[in-house]
């Protein structure tokens, strides 16, 4: 026998189940009057600095069917590449931008749609700049442990080409699963990020 390290084990994950919205966005499922606003629905206020963008998409299962019951959270830096977090040591982020959003996908179409700002670049561990990105976390019935991925921007080809995280992806054919093409909708830059849980063009998910 040897001495014990004394670390605790992380509580194991369990699926969020079909009723995740009751606890996370109760107003959205018509449980009103418990608390006023669902957290995370609005990211941007008139005072937020940065370029307004739309991020939208759907999540598809292995049969190509869009999930109608998933919950998505996003986490991103502000326009200058600073996170609004006590762990951020490089400066003070825009006080008018939390950088966290949460949304149930649409119950009929499976679509999500975040109105946010384009994040600035943040450094990799060795100081090199990563390309601008938004972290996604996806939970749903049938997903046993929440899935982490990143959305990169289709109009940031040069930055994407030198991003140290994207460079980790051995199978270059899979890179495109993380890059959202840009279009314009109602005058706003719109990035479409479709996520495929399984099958052809399965999205790259990270063990972070």
């Amino acid at each position, binding site marked *: 026998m040897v001495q014990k390290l004394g670390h605790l084990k992380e509580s194991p994950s369990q699926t969020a189940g079909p009723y995740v919205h009751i606890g996370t966005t109760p107003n959205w499922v018509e449980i009103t009057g418990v608390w006023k606003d669902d957290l995370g629905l609005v990211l941007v206020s008139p005072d937020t600095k940065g370029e307004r963008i739309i991020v939208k998409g759907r999540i598809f299962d292995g049969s190509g069917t869009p999930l109608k019951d998933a919950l998505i959270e996003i986490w991103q830096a502000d326009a200058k590449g600073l996170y609004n977090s006590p762990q951020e040591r490089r400066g003070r982020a825009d006080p008018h931008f939390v950088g966290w959003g949460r949304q149930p996908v649409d119950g009929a179409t499976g679509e999500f749609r975040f109105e946010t700002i384009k994040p600035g670049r*943040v450094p990799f561990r060795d100081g090199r700049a990563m390309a601008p990105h938004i972290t996604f976390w996806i939970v749903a019935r049938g997903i046993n442990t929440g899935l982490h991925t990143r959305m990169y921007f289709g109009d940031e080809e040069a930055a994407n080409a030198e991003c140290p995280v994207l460079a980790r992806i051995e199978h270059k054919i899979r890179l495109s699963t993380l890059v959202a093409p840009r279009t314009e909708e109602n005058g706003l830059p719109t990035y479409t990020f479709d996520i495929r849980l399984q099958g052809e063009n399965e999205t790259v998910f990270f063990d972070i």
Partner: protein
Amino acid sequence: MSDHGSFFQRDRSWHPPALTPQYKTSVLRSPRYPLLSLENTISEMTGPVFGHDVIGPLDNDLIRNYAKTGDPIGQRIIVYGRVLDENARPVPGALLEFWQANAGGRYRHKKETYLAAIDPNFGGCGRAITDQEGRYSFRTIKPGAYPWPNGVNDWRPAHIHFSVFGHAFAQRLITQMYFEGDPMIWQCPIVSTIPDKAAVEQLIAALDRNNTIHMDALAYKFDIVLRGRRSTLFENRMEGN
């Protein structure tokens, strides 16, 4: 940036794998490629922080926070515990959100089809933020077991769902709490997605007779452990670490 402050790697053998055929919905919703391992960058080591001001006075009282005409039906319970990290340090300021079925096993949700009655006085959601010692508590009624479409006769054991925000997005966790002594825990296809019996036991709240409220509520203790972070042994410790 060195390893300093980054999180211990998630023990994927302690968590359920993505593909667990006994839980049928996982079959088409599980990635087939391995996850791409990524040492934490600042994108994962940071995360949103919620102040105590987001919490209303009844948010942690599911007996009262939806009541219309009286108290909800069912056994009154207190759930309490601490949020710790893998270094056994308390996690203060952690936001917990919880949701559950009512005493009959029925959720207040339009897609729910179980015929057990909706309780007009029970919404089934609540939230709390941990104090400086990582403690939280809430009051609720004990949820009932319920049948669900998987096998033709599968039932969920009584459980409460938990969503937890620590200090970093890497710590984000959703899990479920079960109740001591429930034989149905060991017959559940969702519980059994967790391969290790000791890991399942980590999700079973202990009945705590010492903390019951006299003539009012039973108490269950449920501690939650989030990922811990490295501190470099030969450098100054990071703040909050």
